[in-house]
């Protein structure tokens, strides 16, 4: 059973949610005493999460405020407009929870994973070495998809009868992803106007959100420079221009790469005209689709290096490849590097 300390420490758990429900506090109550302390603490949570995530820490001495402050903060975040800010909030909160989880006894971690998230997780039959838990591959996969390190790759894990061996720290890290997803899910914009009582505090938070609009990738337009493209893309261009055929995923990769590197739809059409099996109507449809001109209006980006490797499209990494995970980042970096070297004054040739 979880204590009040536990609920204050891990207010995302189902036990904490039940506790909050039993307090029976309405939204309108939050602006008057004594519940305004909850609102205050919720606002503090948000400020800390957005600007000083290291200071996020549970105030266990007053669970009646601490526990409801979490769903209150989430409700406030739901009315925030910026998706980016919501993500920052979710990341900070979930990180601080997983940090705490790493210090808990394995039993506590197991209980949260099972009861709140329904994970199929258990202790190994014979506890040897560093293995604390066995987790079903499904829960593992859905929570490790953003982790790029080789050690998280399923291929490199011990997997037996559907279960993966994990240490407690690894389990806490996977729980962090699960908590983050839960927060993001709950901060989805509700289709109602925010309650009047909260409008004042909301405009303050929305103000906070605009203070730092993070380093959003600015869409830059490049003039296409083939020399700066990664080898895999060059190979695809060569294949096409020498009349060869590309697989469907190869075509998708090349088209989305060129579009994102700044090529126009017409440029791309011209490239594809050299293909041995060129079909103008079909190609135009696909190019327009990928560039976002059709259907879902989404502009697609090429698959990341890891995916290209899976499908045998990686032609072997060069030095720069080792430092990037995506063909577009390769191109962007290489562009910057070559612009720099062009900018340097050329030495006078010796005659």
């Amino acid at each position: 059973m979880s204590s009040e300390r536990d609920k204050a420490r891990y207010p995302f758990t189902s036990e904490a949610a039940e506790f909050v429900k039993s307090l029976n506090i309405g939204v309108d109550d939050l602006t008057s005493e004594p519940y305004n302390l909850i609102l205050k603490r919720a606002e503090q949570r948000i400020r800390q999460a957005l600007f000083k995530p290291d200071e996020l820490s549970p105030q266990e001495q007053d669970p009646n405020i601490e526990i409801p402050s979490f769903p209150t903060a989430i409700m406030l975040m739901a009315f925030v407009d910026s998706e980016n800010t919501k993500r920052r909030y979710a990341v900070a909160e979930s990180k601080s929870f997983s940090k705490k989880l790493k210090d808990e006894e394995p039993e506590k971690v197991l209980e949260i994973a099972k009861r709140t998230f329904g994970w199929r997780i258990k202790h190994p039959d014979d506890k040897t070495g560093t293995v604390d838990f066995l987790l079903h591959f499904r829960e593992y996969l859905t929570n490790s998809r953003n982790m790029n390190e080789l050690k998280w790759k399923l291929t490199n894990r011990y997997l037996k009868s559907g279960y993966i061996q994990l240490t407690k720290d690894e389990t806490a890290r996977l729980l962090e992803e699960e908590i983050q997803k839960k927060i993001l899910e709950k901060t989805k914009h509700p289709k109602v106007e925010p309650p009047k009582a909260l409008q004042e505090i909301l405009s303050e938070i929305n103000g906070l959100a605009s203070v730092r609009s993070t380093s959003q990738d600015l869409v830059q337009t490049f003039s296409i420079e083939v020399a700066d493209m990664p080898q895999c893309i060059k190979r695809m261009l060569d294949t096409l221009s020498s009349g060869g055929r590309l697989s469907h995923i190869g075509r998708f990769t090349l088209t989305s790469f060129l579009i994102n590197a700044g090529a126009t739809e017409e440029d791309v059409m011209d490239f594809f005209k050299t293909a041995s099996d060129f079909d103008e109507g079909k190609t135009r449809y696909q190019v327009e689709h990928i560039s976002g001109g059709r259907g879902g209006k989404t502009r697609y980006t090429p698959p990341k290096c890891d995916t290209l490797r899976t499908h045998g499209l990686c032609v072997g990494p060069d030095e720069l490849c080792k430092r990037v995970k995506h063909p577009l980042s390769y191109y962007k970096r290489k562009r910057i590097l070559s612009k720099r070297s062009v900018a340097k004054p050329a030495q006078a040739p010796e005659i």
Partner: protein
Amino acid sequence: MSEENLEQRTRALVRDKFSEYYRTNKSTILPPPYMERREFGFLLTEGVMVRHKSFKQVEGLVSFIEATVPSDVYHSAAYYLDPEAPMDSKCWTGSDLIFDIDADHIDTECKERHDRWSCLECKATGHGKTPKTCPNCGRQKLSEDTWMCYDCLERAKEEVLKLIDLLNSDFGVNHDHMRVNFSGHRGYHLHVDTEDVKSLGSEERKAIADYVTGTGLDGDLLGLYDLDGRIKIEDGPKITDPSWRGRVARRIDKILFEADVEELRSIGLKSKMIETVRKRRKEVESSKDRSLLGLIEGFGEQTWKLIIQRAVSLESVGIDTVVTTDIHRLIRLPRTLNGKTGLRAMKVQIGELRKFNPLEQATVFGGYETVHIQEAPQFTVGGEQYGPFKDVDENLPTAAAIFLLCKRKAYPVVKPIV
């Protein structure tokens, strides 16, 4: 007669025979589980694809097939709330996990015998697997002419058996939740339909595809190497270990025990090392603990790397990764005909897979047909061997004739009316 006319005659005869098959075999057509939530697609003999169809019951599906006589019938591995809607409003609710194993993706020696390629630019031709670029002119405009034989279908089957074993031991999937279908051409499809996999996205399926193929495997993370880069002896991989660690150990053991001199040499082992291996084999043969791993001394880092690489590539299952990661994939419906061969796609019970021979059991047509064969290597259909042929009229069992017609290597000979 013009080529167009010959093509029309070929299509008409194939359609005729397919129609007869569907008329007499409609009760055997095997719809996938939850058929009402799947999308069906049909390639009509004229080359038109009809998609986004759905059927609540098998009767509707069967009458559609009977009425249209498609050359190929597919269903989605995915489940949708509205399978007939356009792609982005179908409401995807899940998809079986599918693996496509095709002899096309496996290097086999028999390809040298029955496959050919030709360069569309310089007209150079060659036998075996199609090269990436023409060895004569260096261009990439190559056409290929691929066939299948008992050997390459057996190799494909070995891959399926490897996959079944891996899914069972590593992923814990029971045989009851795996369906294996012969594709009617060069390979097999394996469907997994546990609730655990249905809702996985493309990214998670990619992780599974990488696991199955051993992509991204890191010897250090799996504890294969010691600090000197040699195979780890203490706490090293054991043949009883789970996952890739055990898989690599078992395969290395097999190589060290069973590989002949030629194979050991092909891995890159020098004569002295091969001698060591052979000596050790004799020594441990009588002992209880037959594992050779760790008993081989004197191999350096490079040698172990080569052996491990070979072990990984032999253990890797040759799947088409694109199929596994595609959550909207259409896949062939069992008990329908494959328009490329006239063979029947069919479900094979896992217990009977080993003795399953598609070249005998997947043929369906009776009777004889006379066809003019332009060119064909030796091939087997219905357990009988035919060919090679070049520019001849032949009266063949219908299954063999349809096979050649589907491959567009022959056309029907019109019998004189009188």
